[in-house]
């Protein structure tokens, strides 16, 4: 069976994913979540030619949405690189019929690659509603490539598109062309003539080659540079460029061609498109007058966020409780089956809780990403950036940073993943680095315990609020510092399309959520599991002889003290001493690297209480009050506010930031700032 490899390219929000869904009738592997999947996805299926009955094995490469073939965004980089250097047969260019002119600018660039092109004029139904009529036959003859009207939504034009693809595939060479202004056309003609005279052998048509030479296309120059014809060709090109410059104001050939693309797209649009002068009822504009209202816009958004936050953490906590119960039961069963020995402990205290910790976050992630996908596919996300960019940009962040940051107050794990909506690497990294400053839900019990122990009931609430606000504020300052000293340089420009509001495609949302969940389990999950086992090992080994006179509690304390974790705690005492903390607090903080929940239970063990302690347990509160000086407690709280988030979050951070070295940076940054600020807090409190 013959194989057709199709590169599916188009600008963002043109319905590419829906079209691919409709045409392949197959399960889409993972939908493109704008800003997230900068990977290309591949779909394979069998396509039959209805006329000849011949069957083809079709591979569609779904390229990320790009406005043009440049390196501006990650998506555009991936798309450009694929189109220029990978192996494929045909480009299927999906075009938004309601936005023909802008889309055709991209089309001209695709045609210039010299590959076979088929154009799908998508959203033709919507265009009809808006009174737009496109003469596709005329457009075909202008561009020299087949143009097919399609509607992914109503599954129209799909068969015609398939036929066009097969016919184009069977053709020897493409007859596509972009028409330029006269001076450029003249020079193209000159170069073609020259190549003709020399009978130059080229896989590209002479016209496409000539255009690339005039555009000073690097790849083409590199390739032809080593050929004998080059010596003679070079003066022809040079003279050609000089001629072109005579007619233009600029000598920037890229700018000249950008102008050409635009002029061509404009001309072609005028020729093939007619728009009835009906007043279009555009719901987008109406919705925007409310959602983007100068005064209502932000409150409305905050309300949506509040709702999403409630759903994520309130609704999410229900399955989390069940997951917890189930994994506890598994652990108990493991002990029963494997016994109380080494193996039993490894499975029951190491592996099973490790797997549990991974699965635990899944409900949060699924709900949060459902919400984010909803915001993205409806087109609201761009509005959010528009509304909030003014404030966040002052701190070197992006308008979209708000969502991951707010999520950070719930849990850092989904928050790190939510940072994927940020397209620019710099913006994303700064956001990732400061998410930890937004105190997550697991730190709350520690705060409750300490504020409860040292402040009156009436004051504790305010102090708690203060902790959160100060944390967030520190985060913003840190963002500014990072922006000024680490991620310096020019700001990434903020030029963004505000797409039309669309009804969400549930299928696409499902694929997004499914994809996120899967990638979390695959990538982060493995590391969380491995690290959990490591922590288990560090807190259980080396094995020590427990004096027989000790009761259960004393032996637990003794075991922890003698373990590697305890040894590290003792060894790190000099590090924590200036902060007013003893080795017990050090061990609790270090155990907190595994999970913040562990801090309290560790304190419980170390201050010789039973294991079952929580932030409300009277015994622990009084013990802490008795054993920890006020200034040390303040210092402890400040340290907890800032230092490295839990193990699971750290693993996800490393994944999302794109490397382990970033985790090292994060560790250094959080530890250093936690230490300095704790030190200051300690000294100042001592003075007061």
């Amino acid at each position, binding site marked *: 069976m013959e194989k057709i490899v199709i590169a599916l390219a188009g600008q963002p929000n043109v319905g590419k994913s829906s079209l691919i869904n409709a045409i392949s009738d197959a399960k889409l592997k993972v939908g493109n979540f704008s800003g997230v999947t900068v990977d290309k996805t591949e779909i394979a299926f069998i396509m039959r030619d209805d006329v000849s009955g011949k069957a083809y094995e079709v591979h569609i490469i779904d390229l990320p949405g790009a*406005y*043009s073939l*440049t*390196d*501006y965004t990650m998506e555009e980089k991936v798309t450009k690189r694929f189109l220029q250097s990978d192996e494929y047969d045909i480009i299927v260019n999906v075009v938004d019929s*309601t*936005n023909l*002119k*802008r889309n055709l*600018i*991209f089309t001209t660039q695709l045609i210039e690659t010299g590959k076979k092109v088929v154009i799908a004029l998508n959203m033709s139904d919507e265009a009809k509603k808006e009174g737009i009529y496109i003469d596709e036959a005329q457009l075909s003859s202008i561009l020299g490539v087949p143009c097919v009207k399609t509607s992914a939504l109503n599954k129209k034009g799909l068969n015609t598109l398939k036929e066009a693809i097969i016919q184009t595939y069977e053709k020897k060479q493409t007859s596509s062309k972009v028409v330029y202004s006269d001076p450029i056309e003249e020079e193209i003609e000159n170069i073609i003539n020259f190549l003709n005279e020399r009978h130059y052998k080229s896989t590209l048509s002479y016209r496409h080659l000539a255009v690339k030479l005039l555009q000073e296309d690097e790849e083409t120059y590199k390739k032809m540079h080593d050929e004998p014809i080059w010596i003679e060709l070079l003066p022809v090109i040079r003279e050609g460029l000089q001629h072109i410059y005579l007619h233009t104001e600029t000598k*920037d050939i*890229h*700018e000249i061609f*950008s*102008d050409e*693309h*635009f002029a061509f797209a404009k001309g072609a649009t005028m020729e093939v498109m007619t728009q009835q002068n009906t007043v279009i009822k555009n719901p*987008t*504009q109406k919705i*925007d007058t409310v959602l*983007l209202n*100068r*005064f209502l*816009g*932000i409150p409305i958004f905050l309300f949506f966020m509040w709702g999403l936050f409630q759903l994520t953490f309130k609704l999410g906590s229900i399955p989390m409780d069940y997951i917890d119960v189930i994994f506890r039961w598994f652990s108990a069963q493991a002990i029963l089956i494997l016994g109380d020995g080494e193996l039993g402990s490894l499975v029951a205290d190491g592996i099973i809780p490790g797997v549990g910790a991974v699965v635990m976050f899944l409900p949060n992630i699924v709900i949060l990403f459902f919400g984010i996908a909803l915001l993205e596919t409806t087109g609201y996300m*761009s509005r959010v*950036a*528009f*509304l909030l*960019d*003014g*404030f966040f*940009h002052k701190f070197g962040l992006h*308008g979209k940073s708000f969502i991951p940051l707010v999520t950070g107050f719930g849990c850092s794990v989904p928050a790190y993943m939510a940072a994927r909506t940020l397209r620019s690497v710099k913006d994303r990294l700064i956001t990732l680095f400061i998410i930890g400053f937004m105190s997550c839900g697991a730190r709350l019990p520690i705060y409750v315990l300490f504020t409860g122990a040292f402040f009156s009931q009436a004051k504790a609430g305010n102090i708690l609020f203060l902790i959160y606000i100060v944390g967030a504020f520190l985060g913003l300052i840190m963002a500014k510092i990072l922006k000024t000293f680490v991620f310096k340089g*020019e*700001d990434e*420009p*903020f*030029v*963004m*399309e*505000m*797409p039309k509001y669309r009804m969400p495609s549930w299928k696409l949302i499902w694929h997004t959520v499914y994809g996120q969940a899967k990638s979390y389990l695959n990538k982060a999950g493995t590391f969380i599991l491995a690290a959990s086992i490591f922590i288990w090992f560090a807190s259980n080994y080396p094995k020590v002889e427990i004096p027989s006179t000790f009761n259960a509690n004393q032996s637990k304390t003794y075991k922890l003290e003698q373990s590697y974790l305890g040894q590290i705690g003792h060894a790190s005492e000099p590090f924590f001493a200036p902060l007013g903390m003893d080795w017990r607090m050090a061990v609790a903080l270090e155990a907190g690297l595994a999970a913040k929940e562990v801090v309290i239970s560790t304190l419980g063990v170390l201050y010789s209480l039973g294991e079952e302690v929580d932030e409300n347990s009277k015994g622990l509160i009084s013990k802490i009050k008795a054993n920890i000086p006020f200034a040390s407690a303040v210092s402890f709280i400040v340290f907890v506010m800032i230092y490295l988030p839990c193990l699971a979050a750290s693993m996800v951070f490393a994944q999302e930031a794109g490397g382990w070295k970033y985790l090292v940076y994060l560790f250094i940054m959080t530890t250093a700032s936690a230490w300095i600020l704790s030190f200051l807090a300690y000294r100042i409190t001592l003075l007061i």
Partner: protein
Amino acid sequence: MHLMDLKKGDKAMIVNIDTKNQALKKRLYSFGVMPGEELSIKRCSLGRRTMEIKIDTTLIALRAEEASIIQVKPII
């Protein structure tokens, strides 16, 4: 005169895009923001930090920094 000098509802024609940043220029071009094109100001966010413009059927959000490089001539 540039884009930041305009108010909500104003219409203008782009005269020049005044930047040395070629990537940004290309980006604007690919949205159809080019000399000779007409645009209208749809709205500004609080404090005029961001601005929404309309070219053809495309709505585009810009930061004040980017808006101030787009030189325009108002259409009355």
